[in-house]
Every structure is written in structure tokens, then in C-alpha cells.
């Protein structure tokens, strides 16, 4: 039987080698394109009619818009509005990646640390640049905690810097570990359905099958929740960068 981890394997679809670099178009890239295309098609088609009283699709598009706009308003404030396109794109990309990954035989690109780490590093570098552009060198007072005696500063500043550097790591590990764990679990229980069913004329397979139904529902929740958490943390980091103490 196939290993539960086989679903995370990356296969090149269109091999592209430039020099020594392997830039192949893989199944991971294919599903990233699919997520981008699905999000674009969803938003373009659902907002095409622009009715004053929205239909179902338009309501869904407006809901996602208002959801992210509210998130930015609550967590960053009015200054954050300029960053709405970035944050909305990030949310939709991760959300569609997570959701498309739940379709059988598809590939979940957010279950790869390389992808989530690239997103997280992009966010952190971007947010740091926003902070430096806005505050100049004053931004680095960020690493000096408030209300700490001067004697403790040589210890606290390295701790703050390491803590700052751990942000992209925890951001990316959280998303990738959740997606990978969930998908592995579904696959493990699916293999129980087969192996238990085979030795008990199919009756033994019912319990893990019921479990799997519950797990898929749970994964839908996780798919949304993790996209939400990634977005909220991006907002909070942006808030930190925009509003120094």
C-alpha cells in the first residue's frame, strides 16, 4: 500500500534546467497556478454583475473582502489600508491552496516548508522594510524592550533579536505542520479502512471511514483557520512595524 507521505512528493511536469538550477514546473507549481487562477476567477466572475443587492456569489466575494478589511482595521488601523491588496492576496492564495489540497488526487502546496517559508520570509522582509522606511534607524529601538534596567540590556537585546528572527520560522512551521499533519492523518485512516475492511468482510472498515468523514470536515476548518492565522499574524507584524512604541 502507498505510504501516507507519498502525497507530498514533488514530480516535475515540465522539466526546465537552466545551468545547474532545476526550475522545473512541478505538480506544486501547477497547484499554485490553480489556486491563483481559482481565486482570480472566483473574484472576477462574482463581482462582474455588481448588483446593489448581491447574489450568492457576490455576497461571498463581499464577505471575504469585508472579512480581510475588518481584520486590517482591527489589527493595524487606518494606516493598514494601503496594504490591503497584499494581505488580501496572501489570504486568498493560502486559503485556496489549502482548500484545493483537500480535493482527492490534488496536491497541497502549503504542506511544504519551502513554500510556507518563502511566504513567511517575504512577509517579514516586507514588514521590516516598511518599518525602516517609515521610522528610519529609529526602527531598531524595536529591539530595546521597555522598562528594562540598563544592566539587563546586553542580555535582552540578543533575546529580542532572536525572538524577532524566530517570527518567520514559527509563521511558516505553523502552516506547513498543520497541513502536513492533517493530510497524513486522513491518509492513515483511509488505509485503515482498506486493511481493516479486508480482514473483516468490510465491517471493520466502517469505524475508520466514519473517522475519516469527521477528519475531512475538521481539515476544512483547519484550512480556513490556518489561512486566517497567517493573515492575522501578518497584520500584527505590520502593526508592530507601523506603530513603534
Amino acid at each position, binding site marked *: 500500500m502507498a505510504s501516507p507521505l507519498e502525497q507530498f512528493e514533488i514530480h516535475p511536469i515540465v522539466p526546465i534546467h537552466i545551468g545547474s538550477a532545476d526550475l522545473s514546473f512541478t505538480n506544486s507549481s501547477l497547484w499554485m497556478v490553480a489556486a491563483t487562477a481559482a481565486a482570480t476567477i472566483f473574484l472576477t466572475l462574482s463581482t462582474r454583475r455588481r448588483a446593489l443587492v448581491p447574489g450568492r456569489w457576490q455576497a461571498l466575494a463581499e464577505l471575504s473582502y469585508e472579512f480581510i478589511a475588518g481584520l486590517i482595521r482591527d489589527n493595524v488601523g487606518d494606516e493598514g489600508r494601503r496594504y490591503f491588496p497584499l494581505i488580501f492576496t496572501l489570504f486568498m492564495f493560502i486559503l485556496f491552496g489549502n482548500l484545493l489540497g483537500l480535493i482527492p488526487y490534488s496536491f497541497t502546496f502549503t504542506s511544504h516548508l519551502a513554500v510556507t517559508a518563502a511566504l513567511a520570509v517575504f512577509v517579514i522582509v516586507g514588514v521590516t522594510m516598511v518599518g525602516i522606511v517609515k521610522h528610519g534607524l529609529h526602527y531598531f529601538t524595536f529591539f530595546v524592550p521597555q522598562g528594562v534596567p540598563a544592566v539587563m540590556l546586553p542580555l535582552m537585546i540578543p533575546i529580542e533579536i532572536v*525572538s524577532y528572527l524566530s517570527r518567520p520560522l514559527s509563521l511558516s512551521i*505553523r502552516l506547513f505542520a498543520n497541513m502536513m499533519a492533517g493530510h497524513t492523518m486522513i491518509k492513515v485512516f483511509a488505509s485503515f479502512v482498506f486493511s481493516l475492511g479486508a480482514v473483516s468482510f468490510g465491517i471493520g472498515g466502517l469505524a475508520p471511514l466514519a473517522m475519516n468523514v469527521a477528519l475531512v470536515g475538521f481539515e476544512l476548518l483547519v484550512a480556513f483557520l490556518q489561512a486566517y492565522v497567517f493573515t492575522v499574524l501578518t497584520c500584527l507584524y505590520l502593526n508592530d512595524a507601523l506603530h513603534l*512604541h
Partner: protein
Amino acid sequence: MNERDTPPQLNELDAKLRAARAARDAKENEGATRSNQSGVGFAFRIGVELVAALIVGVGIGLFLDRWLDTAPWFLIGFFFIGAGAGIVNVYRATSRYGLAVGYHVPADETVEPREAETSADGSAKDAEIGERTAKE
């Protein structure tokens, strides 16, 4: 399309929408606890925060040791700094900011995210911290 021929209905709808929104907001404020994350999710998040800082600390230590040929001193030093940073991360995640590894208490509490109650002066802050920790 609709707005030209049916203004009275729209006004009605507008009033209804406003009433519904007010009712929803009231309900949300009533149960303003953070129920959108399960306990397991929160525990997992804390674990990640703790380990991520340790990984960064150890990584910096190993890199400096390899670069400056001083093994194992930077590794030892940054191991403890990473552990400290992990604990700082967890402390911050659990005490003040809902989801954040936040850094500074904002000067004015108006930028504080997702909190219903606001306080203008810093003297009330300590009491507030205790209150929130107890809530969670």
C-alpha cells in the same frame, strides 16, 4: 439597476440591514471571548513559538562557530539566548496579544487590537494584564 426604480424598498432594506447589524454587534460584544481557536490549537501554537526561537538561536550559534572557528562557545551561548527568546515569545503570546508575538505595549491603547476595553493611562495596564491572563 435596482436603485432607480425601487427607492422605497431600498430604504426599508437599509433600515433592516442596520438593525440586523446592530443586533449582531451586540451579540458579538456579549460573548467577546476568543472562541475561534480550540485549546489544542493554542497549545500547538505555544509549542511552535518555543521551538522556533530555540532553532533560530542554535542556528545562529552553529553558524558563528563554523565561521569564527570557536566551537562550541557561540552554540552554548546562543542556545540559552534562544531558550530565553522562546520563553519571551510564549509569555507574550499568552499574556497581552491574542495571536501575536508582540513587542511593545502601544503608547496609546487605541491601537491595541481586538480588545473591547481601552484605558488611557499606563497605571491601569498592570491590572489589565492580570485580568486578561486570568481570562485566558
